[in-house]
């Protein structure tokens, strides 16, 4: 039942994006979507993935037959409460600024003995093929629910990453002359019927960042922040960056820094 309504809503959402004059009632679609979101507040399909992520976290796996329970996401081994909300951050052991996904992959490699290629092969789900990374990130994200985002970027490496993210945010290229700022640098604008957040302000960046990972109704899947940003680049008609690329982590650092102080509500649900 839930599945069916998701499908029809996905169809509506797609129609809202692409249809022309046929859909003279698009604002109704937007209203319906808001109601739907409300109705799902207690039944987000991402919740199932969160449960899966929890068992993947504690299960002994990989060549080293180890769980992820000793993974240090920045607050110490195994400490998950609020960890997502303070990433990306600088890690001494790798001498790198890492986001939740690059750190998780690092743990799967060092603790469980997987190769990076094995772990990242299925970094996003396809129909019929679920992604362990999406499940684990959904679980880790939920452990920050209700916590304020806190990425002050005070460490020099973090401050530098945030600045580099800012550079990328304003960098224009491609056949449409796009940068992130074209759509996300002003207040109160929208594309078709989709509202656009002003990501240069705390509230705007907060609205964008606090609900990831998020269940995408139109995609029928949970998306992580990496997936979201890589898709932004696709929409800008750019080529595809590598999963866990530094430029994506830099953008995340810039956005999380701007969003610092807003409160996590994850997993989210979005069009």
């Amino acid at each position, binding site marked *: 039942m839930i599945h069916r309504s998701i499908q029809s809503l996905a169809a509506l959402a797609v129609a809202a994006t*692409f249809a022309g004059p046929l859909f003279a009632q698009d604002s109704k679609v937007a209203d319906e979507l808001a109601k739907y979101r409300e109705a799902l507040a207690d039944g987000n399909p991402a919740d199932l993935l969160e449960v899966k992520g929890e068992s993947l976290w504690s299960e002994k796996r990989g060549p080293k037959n180890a769980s992820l329970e000793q993974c240090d996401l920045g607050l110490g081994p195994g400490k998950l409460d609020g960890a997502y909300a303070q990433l990306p951050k600088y890690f001494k052991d790798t001498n790198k600024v890492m986001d939740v996904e690059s750190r998780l992959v690092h743990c799967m490699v060092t603790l469980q003995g997987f190769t990076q290629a094995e772990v990242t092969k299925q970094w996003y789900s396809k129909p019929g093929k679920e992604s362990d990374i999406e499940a684990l990130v959904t679980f880790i994200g939920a452990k920050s629910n209700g916590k304020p985002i806190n990425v002050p970027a005070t460490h020099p490496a973090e401050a530098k990453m945030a600045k580099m993210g800012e550079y990328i945010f304003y960098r224009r290229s491609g056949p449409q002359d796009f940068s992130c700022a074209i759509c996300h640098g002003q207040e109160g*604008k929208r594309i078709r019927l989709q509202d656009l957040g002003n990501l240069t302000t705390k509230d705007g960046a907060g609205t964008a960042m606090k609900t990831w990972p998020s269940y995408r109704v139109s995609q029928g899947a949970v998306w992580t922040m990496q997936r979201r940003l890589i898709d932004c680049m696709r929409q800008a008609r750019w080529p595809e960056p590598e999963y866990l690329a530094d430029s994506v982590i830099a953008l995340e650092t810039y956005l999380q820094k701007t969003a610092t102080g807003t409160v996590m509500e994850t997993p989210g649900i979005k069009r």
Partner: protein
Amino acid sequence: MKLKIALFSALTATLSFAALAEAPGGKFAGEAEQMFRSSFKAENPKYWMKRLDQDETMKTCGIYRDNPPRKIGEKLEKLNAATIRYPVDGKLIGDWKEGEKLAAVGTGGHIGFIQPDPAGRVRGGNCYACHQLAKKELAYGTIGPSLQQFGKVRGNSEEIIKYTYDKIYNSNAFTACTNMPRFGLHSWLTPEQITHIVAFLIDPESPVNKD
């Protein structure tokens, strides 16, 4: 009086220095550019990677967060105006019905490995993503101004027709660093397709002006 002038120039010097110092990325801009370019997959075809190249307009707009000082803006506008090319027959107003379709199409041109557009997928101007046009279409965006009744308000003089064509061909010829893509410059739309969109905006029979 002299003191006033001195104070004023000291102030403007500080201001322009501040604006310059605040270019996105600050002192890490050069390194950020290298990091960005090296973030893309090695197996990306070369012609994809070309899409990351920046011309002078893109570079300059980034530095000034799309708000260049007027003098620099004027220079960019001249540079862009010089790129405009016209259809061979010189006719700048085409078929509004074709233009109506092009204004609605938002697909085409997506590359990458995850969700690329199939080869040959129709590519449009996607004008409704940002502009209000025909009254009957409610799913319009607001990044650009409303263009409803575009022709009705402005008339259909040769001057207006040329302005409309030029603006779609290269928006930066009029406003440096505008949010609007340069459809002709990038060959995203052909000159002929642009004339259809001009007709959609200007023809008195077009729903943009009729409703």
